[in-house]
């Protein structure tokens, strides 16, 4: 089943068009990165998929329905979310909230509670966070928090995962580690993953596709076809060069604030 389908979509924020003529398709089991400079509308796409950002033109079908109607089947990890030191809640409780945090009342002992506990333990193990899940989440490192947040996004067995810059603020080995983890989950649980990223290099080996936002629109395709001199030159409308460094890293030259820069 198609997880995300946008046709000629346009999004506006306070009267300003963020992007238009955006047509993308993401299937179940695909791992797709959303790339592009700051302010190009990557997070706006995520919000549009969740139904939090209405489209002013075009159409969107998310898991077979209109945006917002299928959010219970979407796992969402918002941008740059970290818990500060004074947050006295265990990591495992944060994961559990992702499962049944929207329900009224308090969890009562019983079969349903045991099933829930087992599911939480399972996803925590899946992301390799069992060792530190019982500690207050505010005391964990950025990478540890990120793994627990991915577990939280996964706990309801979503068919679509939206990860908004989950690699931001992680060091390089952790970026590669988390990207590999996401790819494995994508394959094993047959879930579509949209991962918003700033730098394509640590993850490019894991990707099935890339959606590249720039100049008020977006292009979609295989990673090596999109992050390429010709495609990006056409997208930006100014000469862009994609070079391959001797270590294999792709470097985009000619567009300000792109790969390799970490503007905040």
């Amino acid at each position, binding site marked *: 089943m198609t997880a995300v389908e946008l046709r000629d979509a346009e999004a506006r924020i306070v009267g300003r068009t963020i992007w238009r003529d955006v047509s993308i398709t993401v299937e179940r089991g695909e791992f797709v990165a959303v790339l592009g400079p700051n302010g190009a509308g990557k997070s706006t796409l995520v919000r549009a998929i969740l139904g939090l950002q209405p489209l002013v033109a075009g159409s969107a079908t998310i898991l077979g329905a209109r945006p917002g109607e299928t*959010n219970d089947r979407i796992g969402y990890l*918002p941008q740059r979310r970290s818990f500060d030191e004074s947050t*006295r809640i265990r990591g495992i409780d*944060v994961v559990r909230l992702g499962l049944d*945090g*929207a329900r009224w009342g*308090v969890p009562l002992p019983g079969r349903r509670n045991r099933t829930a506990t087992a599911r939480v333990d399972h996803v925590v193990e899946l992301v390799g966070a069992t060792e530190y899940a019982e500690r207050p989440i505010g005391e964990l490192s950025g990478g540890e928090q990120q793994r627990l947040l991915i577990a*939280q996004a996964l706990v309801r067995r979503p068919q679509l995962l939206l990860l908004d810059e989950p690699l931001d603020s992680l060091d390089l080995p952790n970026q590669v580690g988390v990207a590999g983890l996401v790819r494995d989950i994508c394959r094993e649980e047959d879930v579509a993953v949209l991962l918003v990223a700033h730098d394509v290099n640590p993850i490019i080996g894991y990707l099935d596709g890339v959606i590249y936002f720039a100049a008020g629109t977006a292009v979609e395709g295989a990673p090596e076809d999109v992050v390429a001199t010709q495609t990006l030159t056409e997208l930006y409308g100014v000469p862009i060069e994609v070079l391959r460094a001797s270590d294999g890293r792709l470097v985009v030259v000619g567009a300000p604030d792109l790969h390799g820069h970490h503007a905040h």
Partner: protein
Amino acid sequence: MPIDSVFTGLSWNPVHDVHELFTYPFMVHALEAGTIVAVMSGVIGWFMVLRRQTFAGHTLSMTAFTGASAASLAGAPVAVGYFGICSLGALALAAATGTRRSLSSESAATGSIGAFALALGFLFVNLYHGALNGLDSLLFGTFLGITSGQVLALLVVAAVAIALVGLAARPLLFASVDPDVARAAGVRVRLLGLGFLLVLGLAVAETSQITGSLLVFALLVTPAATAQRLTTRPLAGVVLSVVLALAVTWLGLALAYFSIYPVGFYITSVSFALYLLARAFA
């Protein structure tokens, strides 16, 4: 000062002293009221500390003072003033802060409301000339002269507030620690925020009637903050917060009964001592 001259009522026979606490109706009412207030502030205080809304709680206690002094001036029951104005104050806070995400603008708006409320209360106390010795108890608390009718009113309000928080416990916890994801999961984050401020207003209004407006924190913040240092499990934290608030209240009332110093001082001091212990050892 020799300790005997502070604890003038104490016989130093524990059995006799505890028995004496329950002898007089006014003291029984005080213990009942204190128990109700402690349970409520333990529960709601835990969420308030988690949500970092202690400043909002403080501001509501300023408006509590305004309400109580306005009620005295108008000849209405003080409790009416407390509950009425705290609800209004909660709505004002929600209106002033609800749409903004930035903490700094939130605290500036909150502080401005608090300062104005305190000034109004001071004006009312001045207009009501007879309130001079009432001012102390409005600000720092009293346990004298609580009627069984007041105890019943406290009980009803506390039961409603605790039931509401219990019903919304999970979404409220979700919205408090992780608002963005909670919103995407369908939790009405803003509505819960407004609802919680109203319940917090009720809690402040109740607590003010025992500790006085300025010492509300002794029951609403300190036990909850102590509990959060000692455990990170939500349910255990709420229970511990209630237990600490109860212990502090009972001890404070007993100490005040046998001594010449006011109840607010004892509740606050015991509370603070427990907090320091928790910080030192946990």
